[in-house]
């Protein structure tokens, strides 16, 4: 589904990703862990098409399409979703109008008519129950005045609405208490399917107790230096990252 080859990206003159390779097949959940500054969030941003980062080399194939050739809007319409580490507040734009524009953008891409008001509202009702997002939040301005947990639940609600084929979750566990974490994780788990892949970026192993990955990769200094199964995450939790740095340098 997604094949990342030798991906290099920088901010200004500073290289962040230095030849990253990763292949994700349909239905798989991959986790990327790594110390601060390793390039985890950069990877998420580069995949979503944030212009702030310059891609210096490598390729990303997304179901036969050149992902790097598409702008952020096209990537989303083609089925990529990024759950933001810091969801953005947009005062004056209601959550519900925002989502309708997003849904209709995707439908336009698929050659479909804009969604009918009634169908849209029942879809909202169905998907918001998945993350226990209450009606009050749906009608408020996008993320404005939401608590940390509400913002992350809103991200997962948006993901459920848009039904992407490939979702990147960037530190979705940060700022969540245990109850919110459980709600967010169960929302994600409900969406796991043989056709849908996930890339879960996290600093801590805790999230992976709830969203159990098929593969765990360790990102250090812009490269994946080690891959394994979910047990690798437990080992990292136990021993930290230093032993990997030593082992890979040696």
């Amino acid at each position: 589904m997604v094949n990342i080859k030798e991906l290099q990206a920088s901010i200004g003159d500073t290289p962040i990703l230095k030849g990253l390779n990763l292949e994700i097949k349909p239905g798989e959940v991959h986790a990327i862990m790594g110390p601060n500054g390793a390039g985890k969030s950069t990877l998420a941003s580069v995949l979503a098409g944030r212009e702030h980062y310059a891609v210096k080399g490598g390729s990303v194939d997304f179901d036969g399409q050149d992902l790097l050739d598409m702008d952020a809007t096209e990537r989303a319409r083609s089925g990529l979703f990024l759950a933001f580490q810091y969801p953005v507040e947009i005062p004056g734009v209601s959550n519900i109008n925002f989502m309708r524009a997003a849904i209709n953008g995707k439908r336009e891409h698929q050659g479909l008519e804009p969604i009918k008001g009634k169908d849209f509202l029942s879809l909202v009702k169905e998907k918001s129950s998945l993350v226990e997002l209450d009606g009050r939040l749906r009608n408020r301005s996008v993320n404005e005045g939401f608590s940390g947990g509400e913002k992350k639940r809103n991200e997962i609600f948006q993901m459920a609405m848009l039904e992407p084929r490939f979702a990147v979750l960037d530190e979705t566990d940060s700022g969540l208490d245990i109850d919110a974490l459980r709600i967010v994780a169960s929302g994600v788990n409900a969406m796991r399917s043989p056709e849908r892949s996930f890339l879960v970026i996290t600093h801590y192993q805790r999230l992976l107790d709830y969203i159990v990955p098929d593969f765990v990769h360790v990102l250090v200094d812009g490269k994946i230096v080690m891959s394994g199964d979910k047990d690798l995450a437990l080992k990292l939790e136990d021993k930290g990252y230093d032993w990997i740095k030593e082992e890979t340098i040696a």
Partner: protein
Amino acid sequence: MTGMAKPIVMDLERKPNIHLATQAKGEALRAALVALRSGTGLAAEYLDALPVPHRRVERWKHTPVAGFWSTYEAPQVQTVLAAGCEACPVPGLHAYRMVFVNGTFDPAASDLPVHNGVQCAPISMSDSPPREAGDLEATEWFAALNQAFAIEGMRLHIKKGVVLDRPLLVHHHTHGPNSANFLRHEITVEANAQVQLIHWSTADSQASGMVNIMTHIEAATGSHVALDKVQDEAGKLHHLAFEQINQAQSTQVRVHTGTIQGQWVRNDLNFRLDGEGCDSVLNGFFLPSGNEFVDNHTTVDHCAANCTSSEQYQGILYGSSSGVFNGKVFVRPNAQQTNAYQQNGNILVTDKSKINAKPELEIYADDVKCSHGCTIGQFDEEALFYARSRGISEAEAKAMLVNAFIGDVLDGFAVPEVRMELEHRLATKHGWDTWNDTLEAG
């Protein structure tokens, strides 16, 4: 002191703040207009005594007037039919209508209210006496110019307690080059009467010259007046709009100004709150692009106690456009318990766009609540990326942010059809495919 210096000093004392070259241009313009309009403009009460505005006059500091020193011609086209424009620019609007083309009343395109309690006629056909000049004509050269040359306009008188059953649209269209169009609208609303007015200005793409419109509104005790003002003029016009609104006790006047398009626009909106318990609302938006210029000068003069005024002007400046906002609020010594609010927000879309914004509050009463705020910023790049990452196109994402920025002002326009047409015209001008209407979730 030499013998030569003295008369210059005396001259400056007689006419303070005169820029001689500009003054000469103004006088040449006046002479040209007198010749063009044979006979009018001679008996100008204040024109002789006033300085022509220039850059060193505070109220005109950022408002270039050089474009007025041009040549003007007598209009050839005086009807909607000849101009090939719409009589009513707002689809589906069910309103009375008074249409002027190049400053001339077009009876065939108009639909005047016929009602015992309403007198509504073009000035040229009205037998009531003209209104006396007010403060604006006495202090502003361009307003005095209007007084001298405006022989047409609307005279509207709504009698005590009458509620006009439909909005009244005053549509002015400019057709062709080198126009000098003057209109004055004299509106009297008697006690407890109510009226909704729409002032809509259009022009074709060949239009140039000037449009100078003066509107006087006298709102008597307990009356309600709403004025929706829209400026959507193609071509290269210089558009001046003066409004003087005098409010008696317990009146409610709401003025909304939307500038969609216009090469050079200055709105000079003045409220005088003369009786207790008045409520004034003045909101506006302006979205200039290219090298358009939009200036909103407003004055709210609180002369009586227990009044509220609320003002919000939102500007989004594209391309190399520039804008001016100047909001004066006076609270006079006896205007206790005044509640005055002013907000001006501006987004500069490019690094070539420009805004000069200045709130001015002068408060001489001690028991009042006055607040004001002014912001100048850019489109939120993070919000744009967030929207795009959800599959929303950049154009639509920007339209959403624009809607969020001016939505409150748009919602305040009194006539729903006007509001919808404004959204449509903004979307057309700026290339947004859709405008998100609100959707209530169940």
